[in-house]
């Protein structure tokens, strides 16, 4: 019990410092909001006219909005590792690792901060969606589901990013790998087209892609008439499991950054 309380205390300490930094310099967060605006306002509007992708009774713009929210979270969180490499180059990582704090708390604190950042991004995407007259669900429970999914999705992809950072250790290598991973993760998911439209090999990849479960949970909870393929328990179960695996891996790899 004491160990768990210590981990929570330490996690909050790290997350608090990270959130302060984020609030102090929100420019990056807002610059990242540009991308979802472009996807929704241009790609979404155009594809809504074409009606080339079957989305049932949903307008294509409504269909893709949860996917763009998930994309915004993915693209932002996946570059979290750059900050970790920067902290390594500054010696901040060394200083943290010499404290008796649990390694899992150091990693979890950063994930929680990324989760909070994800929630702010979600607000931005909601504002854009409202402006484009996307039919949003405003009931409490679905909104809480969206918040939970956004938070968990941000935790997953930021921790994934941290794992990559721990392996590659330099900014140059990280940028290359980050670019290499984001687009395949995005396109091998149900973000902008349904799973049923995919060829079998892509569908298989999509089923193992955590972004698919994030988008699926968002689609059911965010949009009026939106339907999830998987039950929320499945989507959240998969996401929690992926996060637990990544957290364990990151906690083991993180001390290696100081070597």
């Amino acid at each position, binding site marked *: 019990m004491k160990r768990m309380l210590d981990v929570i205390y330490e996690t909050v*300490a790290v997350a608090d*410092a990270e959130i302060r930094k984020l609030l102090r310099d929100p420019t990056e967060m807002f610059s990242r909001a540009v991308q979802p605006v472009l996807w929704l306002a241009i790609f979404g509007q155009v594809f809504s006219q074409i009606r080339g992708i079957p989305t049932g009774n949903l307008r294509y713009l409504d269909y893709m909005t949860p996917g763009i929210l998930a994309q915004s979270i993915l693209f932002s969180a996946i570059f979290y590792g750059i900050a970790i490499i920067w902290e390594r*180059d500054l*010696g901040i990582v060394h*200083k943290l690792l010499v404290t008796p704090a649990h390694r899992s708390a*150091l990693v979890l604190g950063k994930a929680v901060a990324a989760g909070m950042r994800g929630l702010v991004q979600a607000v931005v995407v909601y504002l854009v969606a409202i402006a484009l007259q996307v039919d949003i669900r405003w009931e409490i429970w679905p909104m809480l589901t969206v918040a939970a999914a956004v938070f968990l999705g941000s935790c997953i992809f930021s921790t994934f990013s941290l794992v990559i950072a721990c392996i590659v250790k330099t900014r140059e290598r990280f940028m290359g790998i980050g670019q290499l991973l984001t687009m395949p993760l995005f396109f091998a998911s149900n973000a902008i087209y349904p799973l049923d439209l995919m060829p079998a090999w892509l569908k298989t990849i999509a089923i193992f892609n955590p972004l698919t479960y994030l988008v699926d949970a968002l689609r059911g909870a965010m949009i009026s008439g939106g339907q999830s393929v998987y039950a929320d328990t499945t989507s959240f179960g998969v996401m929690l499991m992926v996060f637990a695996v990544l957290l364990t891996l990151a906690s083991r790899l993180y001390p290696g950054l*100081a070597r």
Partner: protein
Amino acid sequence: MAENAAISTIDLSKRFDRFTALDRLNLSVAPGLIFGLLGPNGAGKSTTIKILTTLLDASSGSATVAGFDIAADPVEVRRRIGYVPQLLSADGTLTATENLNLSARLRGLRGEKRAVRVSEALAFAGVNDVARKLVRTYSGGMIRRLEIAQATLHYPEVLFLDEPTIGLDPVARRSVWERLQQLQRDKGMTILITTHDMEEADILCDELAILHQGRLAAKGNPDELKKQVGPNATMEEVFAHFSGAAIDWGGNYRDLRESRNTMQRLG
């Protein structure tokens, strides 16, 4: 291992593939001393500190810090040490108070105790007036003092500093020395520093060890070492004699990059 030593190593070695960074180091540091680890770049000073602070695993040999084995009880070691890396590790995007609060919380200091220690640390670092300004606006000397305050919030038994005065001007360097002597005097702290600065080694350190190519080349207090080299020998001559090198000899790309990064950040 030496009874009651603050730091003790037995045949401590570190190999990176075929390169031996540290070769069977045997060292004993008595409590309450300021101990200087000298050597050219690449001699194994930073590797020694990283092993003793549990950041790096030794390839063979053993060591205790504050009475705890670094391999068997790394968390107990971490509870009892402070560390100031060569790189400027204070977070420039946080204020001094925020930096100190983060360290205090990760060191398990809570409530009133944390508030008192943070307040003490701000006074110790001499940054009370600018405590709510971002650290990136501070001078190099202020940052170093803050880092020492940050590393000693929990009153560690042993404080490690990796080239703490590199890149500092003479006034800032003196202010760092004064803080270290204050910690030794008031808290009885054992302090291990690595340095290239022979004046620092001579004036500040009670005892010195000179490393050369990962091995212990000499150990003793500054006066003893000077006598071993010859009458009227300077510390520079002692260094050259035992390390067989000029002070700026050697070093790898990473050592040099880290030193330059630190100096660049210090302006």
